[in-house]
């Protein structure tokens, strides 16, 4: 058996290293969804109680996460990572990127609750929620689901939800899914690459 270093071996090794580092074949840490899903469109109520559509983000890219405020572990962890990644971005894209938290638990997440919650992560994070019909219309668009467990004796219940962050460009086309496994530097790298693309 030969152990000679050939160009083929070097390329294979580089590919393996890239895979081990969690990059896909295009070098994204997250998942490139360009052209796979329809542009952003919704009717929801924001954290100020205003009825809004996707126009609220018009002209600027947005990173959107679906969760609920009675979620003490994964939601704050993901939102804090997103906010930290945004702070790492160079100007002006750092100021340009908008952050959105869509609660799929409208029964417990009114505008006031959403406002307090999003404010803990970033001034630029907008809380949104809506009726079940409005939320289903939005989540189905991006092939994600959410659901509720049976309430316990105290009336508390768990909500299952999508764990990825969806990133839309300035034309509100879905471009990237930042998966739950990504750490702050990887998120920042993907966001910077996407938002500085010509």
């Amino acid at each position: 058996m030969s152990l000679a270093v050939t160009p083929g071996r070097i390329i294979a090794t580089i590919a393996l290293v890239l895979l081990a580092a969690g990059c896909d074949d295009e070098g994204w840490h997250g998942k490139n969804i360009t052209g796979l899903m329809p542009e952003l469109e919704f009717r929801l109520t924001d954290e100020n109680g205003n009825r809004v559509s996707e126009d609220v983000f018009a002209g600027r890219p947005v990173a959107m996460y679906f969760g609920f405020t009675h979620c003490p572990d994964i939601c704050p962890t993901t939102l804090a990572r997103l906010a930290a990644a945004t702070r790492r971005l160079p100007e002006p894209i750092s100021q340009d990127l908008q952050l959105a938290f869509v609660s799929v638990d409208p029964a417990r997440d009114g505008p006031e609750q959403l406002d307090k919650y999003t404010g803990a992560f970033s001034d630029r994070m907008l809380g949104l929620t809506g009726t079940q019909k409005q939320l289903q219309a939005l989540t189905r668009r991006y092939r994600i689901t959410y659901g509720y467990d049976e309430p316990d004796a105290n009336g508390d219940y768990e909500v299952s939800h999508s764990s990825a962050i969806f990133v839309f460009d300035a034309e509100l086309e879905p471009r990237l899914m930042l998966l739950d496994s990504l750490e702050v530097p990887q998120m920042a790298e993907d966001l910077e690459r996407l938002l500085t693309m010509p």
Partner: protein
Amino acid sequence: MKLASAIVALVVLLAGALWWVGQMAPESPIEVDNARVRLVPGGGPMAGYMEIRNHSDDVIRLVGAASPAFGNVMIHRTILSDGRARMQHQSDGVRIVPGDSAVFKPRDLHLMLMQPKGALEVGDQVEIVLRFEGIAPAEWPVAFTVVPVTLE
């Protein structure tokens, strides 16, 4: 024979010293480190994280927790699969074999601290009583530090 006496004396002295060290305050059967509560605004539940080490010779099990600062405390684990997140109540508790530890950390095991009774601030100390099976006493009060929600 002076040398032999000296050696015997030395051995006796060393044995005595070893016995004395062995009799010093016995090691606590468990140790809880880095106990913290992540502050979530809005009156919703918060997460408690920590590392519990089992120094005893027995298998122990964390079976519950309670706190004067929260109406209800549950042991939960976040399950991430197929792009979905959900929480799982650990109804059998958390088993820790001798010499091992259980790490409660973001995106994994956590204490779910529900119905906060008062406004908490970063830097506050909150008492949470951990209840075990396999050690005595069964209840261990632990001081948790309130940390910012942005800290992992």
